[in-house]
Structure formats: structure tokens, C-alpha cells
């Protein structure tokens, strides 16, 4: 008797467990035509988070059979979490992507949906060139929401206070400005090296100046740093680091979490400038004492470095966008088309205080710093994707860590090249 009960009980638990796992195993079209889309994005607070909630609600209103389930994932957790989810076969239908080698890895594994035929002409026209970041072997795998070129965001009050009248045009100008700021008792440049990528952005920008566009792109397939310009970029960065331009304790400074982060230091006028992507005004605004945009925030492009193969005015930056999982319902691409609509892109630009991917929505940019970014972006001969994104997770991670080592005085230009070339062995 007891045994029968036990077996029956176990069977009941097993059935229950199966039912539960059935519930959580992604989402798909069900018999009654109801569709659930799950979506992962990286805005955990404030207006950005609200934007996605509102946009999802608007999409649900226009498509009554669709429910959008939104989950916000902390940015530094996104890559690892997404990979685990994709590998488990229970991935979100819509997930954040930034193109380049990282997306190529996902596509190669057959985990991203080919959107080529699903994208409307309106979407293609609106986002224009930035769509190419999501193109792999002639097919499209994502829709951009923002273009995020990098440059220096700075507090103009602090620069004025230090007696700097013109923004630095060359790297020598920048070093001179740093000295003036230091003399005025102001930390010149904040960098969140704890997160590695903010430090690595320095190397990317020096590489952008030292290497030609072809060399940058060729490395995306060879994933090898053989050209001499990579060494040159490292040497330039090393000699710049030797001038000690960064905030105290930059190795344990995070990028954008809390008042002690590099963005927090700018927001609270503890440091004068930082090299960052165009999402920075939004992040800084969330960290000012009154959580309002920093009134004197301005922008200038990465200075020219003489003697390199990079074209003057070229920019390093990223494209944020979204990709559909290969097993996502077909409504996924409708949602992406929806996000590219003018009104939604304008709302996006306002909520995130950044540059929208849609050229039609770019007129909604009013922030003076962002207007300067936009002008430089439209004039740039070319814009390279962040090198860690371009070269994929394996090489990208090794590159970022090697740059942090250089910041700590632990390695030189050659060790960055070696780390990248050795990364392939660990893949």
C-alpha cells in the first residue's frame, strides 16, 4: 500500500515538473493564435526601462494577439547569460545584439533568425547604413535602435576653470589639457577599468588612428594582430598612460554603476572628462545628485594622432540593436519593424538621451553634446564597430584584459598583440 502511494506520489511530482518545464520552455504560437514574445534588454533603471515597457504595451495594443514579456538584464551580465540561454534551447525571442563577431558567432551556431525578407522597406530606409552592422554573408540578422560613436564627454565648467579654451585636436593638445587640469587640482580623465571595456576603448581609438580601415576589417576574419599598426597603437597608448591622466584608483573604478563609477565621477564633477560611447549623457544624467542631465556636458571627438594610417575624422563606436532568436514566432520581426518607426525612435532617443539609428528621428536630438556627436558621425569617413564586438567574444575578451594590464603597468604593446594572437588557442 505504502509503496503504491509513494510511486503514485512520485509520478504526480514528475508530471508536475514536466508541466512546469513545459511552461518555461520559450514561447511560441499556440492553437488559439495567442503569441508570447520574450525580450531581453539592458536598461535596468529609469526612462530606458520605462521606454521598453511602454513600447511593448503599444505593440500589444496594436497586435492584440501578442503579449511581450520583458526582462531587463544588467549589461555586464548580458553576454554570458544570453549564451547560456541560447545554448539551453530556451532563449529569449528578442535579444540585444551589437553586430560584429559576437553576432556572427551566434549566427554561425544557427541561433539567430534571418530577417532579410521580414524587414519592411520603411525600416530599411529609416535606419540606413547602420543596418550593415547586422549583416552577415549578405543576410540581415538584426535591427539597430541606436548608433553610439565614441568620443570625449566633458564638463565644460571644469575645463574653463582649468583655463582650457579650445578642445584638444591632437593627442599633444590632450596631454597639455591634462596638465592644466591637474595643476588646477582636477582629475583630468575618468576611466572605469574595472569593467575592462572602458579602458579597452582607449586602445581601440588609438588603433583606429594607427590602422587603416582595411586592416581593422581584415582582423575580423583573421583574428590576428600581425600588422605593425597594432603595435604602434599600443605604444601610443602606453606613452599616453605614462602621463598619468586618469582618476585615482581607476583599476577598481566601474564604468557606470554608482557615484564612484567613471560616469558618476563626471556627473559629480570629480573628474573632467571620459572617453565613452554616445549613451553616456543618459548614464551621467542618472548619476547626477538631482538625477537631471548634467548642464555643462559637452563633447569632442577622439584627437588625431600623427603618423597613423587611419583617416582623419574616422570614428570608433557601436550600434545597439535587437535580433530574433531562430525559433522565435514570426511576430518578432514585426516588433523590430515597430521599434524602427519614427515615433518610437524619437521616444527612444529621448528616453536614452542618445542618437537614434533612424535618420528620420535624428532631428529629435536636442542635447548640445549629442548634437556635436551627430555632426561628427555624419561627417565621419567611416565608423568602425568596437573591436571587441568586431573580433568576437574570445579575442575581444583577451584584448580587453590585455589593455587593462597595460593600464596597470603590467604589460606593453607587444603583450597586447601576443594576448590577441594567443586567444585563438583557448577557443
Amino acid at each position, binding site marked *: 500500500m505504502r*509503496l503504491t502511494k*509513494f510511486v503514485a506520489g512520485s509520478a504526480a511530482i514528475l508530471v508536475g515538473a514536466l508541466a512546469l518545464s513545459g511552461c518555461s520552455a520559450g514561447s511560441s504560437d499556440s492553437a488559439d493564435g495567442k503569441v508570447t514574445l520574450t525580450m531581453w534588454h539592458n536598461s535596468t533603471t529609469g526612462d530606458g526601462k520605462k521606454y521598453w515597457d511602454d513600447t511593448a504595451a503599444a505593440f500589444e495594443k496594436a497586435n492584440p494577439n501578442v503579449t511581450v514579456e520583458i526582462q531587463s538584464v544588467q549589461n*555586464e551580465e548580458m*553576454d*554570458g547569460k544570453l*549564451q*547560456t540561454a*541560447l*545554448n539551453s534551447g530556451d532563449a529569449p525571442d528578442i535579444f540585444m545584439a551589437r553586430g560584429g563577431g559576437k553576432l556572427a*558567432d*551566434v549566427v*554561425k*551556431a*544557427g*541561433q539567430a533568425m534571418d530577417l532579410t525578407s521580414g524587414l519592411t522597406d520603411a525600416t530599411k530606409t529609416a535606419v540606413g547604413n547602420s543596418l550593415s552592422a547586422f549583416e552577415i554573408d549578405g543576410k540581415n540578422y538584426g535591427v539597430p535602435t541606436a548608433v553610439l560613436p565614441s568620443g570625449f564627454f566633458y564638463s565644460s565648467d571644469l575645463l574653463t576653470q582649468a583655463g582650457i579654451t579650445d578642445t584638444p585636436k591632437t593627442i599633444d593638445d590632450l596631454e597639455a589639457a591634462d596638465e592644466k587640469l591637474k595643476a588646477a587640482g582636477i582629475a583630468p580623465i575618468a576611466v572605469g*577599468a*574595472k*569593467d*575592462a571595456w572602458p579602458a579597452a576603448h582607449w586602445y581601440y581609438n588609438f588603433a583606429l588612428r594607427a590602422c587603416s580601415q582595411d586592416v581593422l576589417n581584415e582582423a575580423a576574419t583573421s583574428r590576428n594582430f600581425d600588422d605593425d599598426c597594432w603595435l604602434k597603437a599600443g605604444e601610443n597608448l602606453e606613452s599616453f598612460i605614462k602621463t598619468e591622466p586618469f582618476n*585615482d*584608483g581607476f*583599476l*577598481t573604478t*566601474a564604468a557606470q554603476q554608482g557615484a*564612484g563609477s567613471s560616469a558618476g565621477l563626471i556627473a559629480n564633477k570629480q573628474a573632467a572628462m571620459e572617453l565613452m560611447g554616445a549613451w553616456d549623457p543618459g548614464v551621467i544624467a542618472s548619476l547626477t545628485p538631482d538625477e537631471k542631465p548634467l548642464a555643462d556636458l559637452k563633447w569632442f571627438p577622439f584627437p588625431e594622432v600623427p603618423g597613423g594610417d587611419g583617416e582623419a575624422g574616422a570614428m570608433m563606436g557601436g550600434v545597439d540593436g535587437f535580433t530574433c532568436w531562430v525559433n522565435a514566432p514570426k511576430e518578432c520581426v514585426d516588433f523590430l519593424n515597430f521599434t524602427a518607426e519614427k515615433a518610437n525612435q524619437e521616444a527612444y532617443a529621448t528616453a536614452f538621451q542618445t542618437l537614434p539609428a533612424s535618420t528620420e528621428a535624428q532631428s529629435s536630438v536636442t542635447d548640445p553634446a549629442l548634437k556635436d556627436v551627430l555632426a561628427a558621425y555624419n561627417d565621419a569617413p567611416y565608423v568602425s564597430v568596437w573591436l571587441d564586438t568586431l573580433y*568576437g*567574444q*574570445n579575442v575581444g*575578451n*583577451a584584448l*580587453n*584584459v590585455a589593455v*587593462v*594590464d597595460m*593600464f*596597470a603597468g*603590467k604589460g606593453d604593446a607587444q603583450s597586447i598583440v601576443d594576448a590577441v594572437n594567443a*586567444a585563438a*588557442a*583557448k*577557443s
Partner: protein
Amino acid sequence: MAVLREETHTEEAARGSRRPAGGGASALPPAVPSPRARSHWPKRAELLLLIGPALLVFLAFVILPVVLAAYYGFFSWSGYGAATDFVGLRNYITILTDPAFLEALSHNAFIVVMSLVLQGPLALGIALLLNRKLRFQSLIRVLIFVPYVISEVVVGLGWSLMLQSNGALNGLLEKVGLGGLATDWLSDPSAAIWTLLVIITWKYVGFAVILFLAGLQGIPDEITEAARIDGASYWQVQRYIVLPLMGPTVRIWAFLSIIGSLQLFDLVWIVWGQYVAGTAGTSTMATYMVANGRNSGSYGYGNAVAVVIFLISLVVALLYQRFILRRDSAVTTTGGAH
């Protein structure tokens, strides 16, 4: 740990099998096959029911992952789909020749030794102190144990905030006129590993104290009283009676501490983040594994690192069993026989 338990089992089994051969069994009337002995099935079914689920869970969540990790360690695998790119021992060769891994290993070794050296005497001292009648005794006990109970994430965040170069500790040093001592506690490679040791000691000394207190309370009062009547001083009692009797407890604590130090991950990860631990000189084998496995999307390589960590821990555990813990089991066995 598993090995430890296993040995205890065999020991019990040995003792158990000895018992019927001794007086106990022969004193019983001649064996008549009981109804129970005739059919083994209900007994077996009961065993299967009781052990089965636990065994299944153990196999599925402990043994299988270890086997799978060993399997994936032979592949270059980015984590998506099936692993197909067989690379033989390449991952293992890369690991054992990677200076970053060897550095991490040396940090682990340093932490193993220094944890024993710092925490052992400290905990023993505190335990001896708390074993006497003291005012606020239970309050002090609780306070010493609190850090062990707080989650690693909270501890890591708290300490990292205090120790930042513009944090509370440097602020305090400057305020009391010791500004010259202020340093970058977290990222200066000559200071960082000591900072880590301070945090580890603060966090885990409470656990050692509790273990030692339990050990102290297991020492019968009669023995210490007898010694005192014979004219032994307090220190003589501690040195010649209490400490030797504490041996088994100390040896078990040291075992747990060594294994914990070898697998140290969370505190380093929280305080130094995903990237800086190697630069600051506080990386451990486990942080190396996550940085070069999961974060790099190199899951085959990460699995190989996991296997290396497993083997190192296993060898250390076995050696410790063989040469140090064996004394304790030998003592118990002979003690039981007499």
C-alpha cells in the same frame, strides 16, 4: 569530502562486521532462518526507495557534470550546439603553459598557506578565550560568527567600497594623520593579495572559532581538573592537555580551509570584478576559469580548466587523507577496540 565520508563508512562497516563475529552473535540461540531473512525483496525495495532518489540526484548533478566537463575539455567548443572540434590535449597544454593560470595557481597556494597560518592561531586564541567565563560571552561569540553568516556578495561589496582609494579606510587614515599609510589597497599588486587575506580572515575566522569551541567543549572537565590538581598551570593545561585533544578538530578545520582556499571564487569576483583580479594579483584558478571560459565564450577551454582544478583539489584531498587525517581514524579505531 566525499572521500572522507567514504572512509568513515568502510570503517563502520569493518567494525560492524567484526561485531557479529565477537561475543554478540555467538551468545544468540542457533540461527533459525527468520521469515525476514527468507525473502530479501521487501528489504531491497526499501533500500532502493530510500537510496535511489539520492543516488540519482548525486549521479545527475555531481558525477555526470564531472564526466561531461572531462569530455568537453577535449574540444574547442564555443558553447552552442554539439562539440565537434576535437583538439585532444591542446586545452590542457595551453592551461599548464599559460602564465596567467600559473599565477592564479600560485595565488591559490599562497592563500591556502596563509589562511592556515593566519586563521588557525587566531581562531584557537579566540576559542580558548571564549571558553572561559567572560562578561558578554555570548555577545562576543555572535559578533565573531556574524561575518561567516553574511553573504559573500555583501561582504565583498562592503569591503570594496571601504577600501577604494577614495574610500573610508584611506579617509580615516588621513583624518588621524596617517595619510602616508594610505595606499591603493585593491589594485596595487603588492597590497592586493594581503587585502584579500584580511577579508578572508575576517570572513572565515568565525567558522574556525565555532568549530574549535565545539572541540573544546568535547574535552571532559575531569581531565583538566585532574591536571590542575596535579599542579599544572593554566598554560600547561592548554599546552599539554587541551591542544593535543583538539588535534582532530584542528585537522578537520584545516582540511575544510584548504579545500575552500583552492576553490576560492566569489569574494575575489565581487571585490575585483571580472577583469582586474589577474592584474591586481588576486586571481584564483576559479576566476581564471570563468574569465577564460564563460566570459570568452570558450566553453571547451573552461571545462578543461574545471577538470584541472578538480584534479588538483582531489590530489590535495587524498594526500591530506592519507597522511594527516588517517591518524585520527587510527586513534578512533584503536580507542574503540580497547
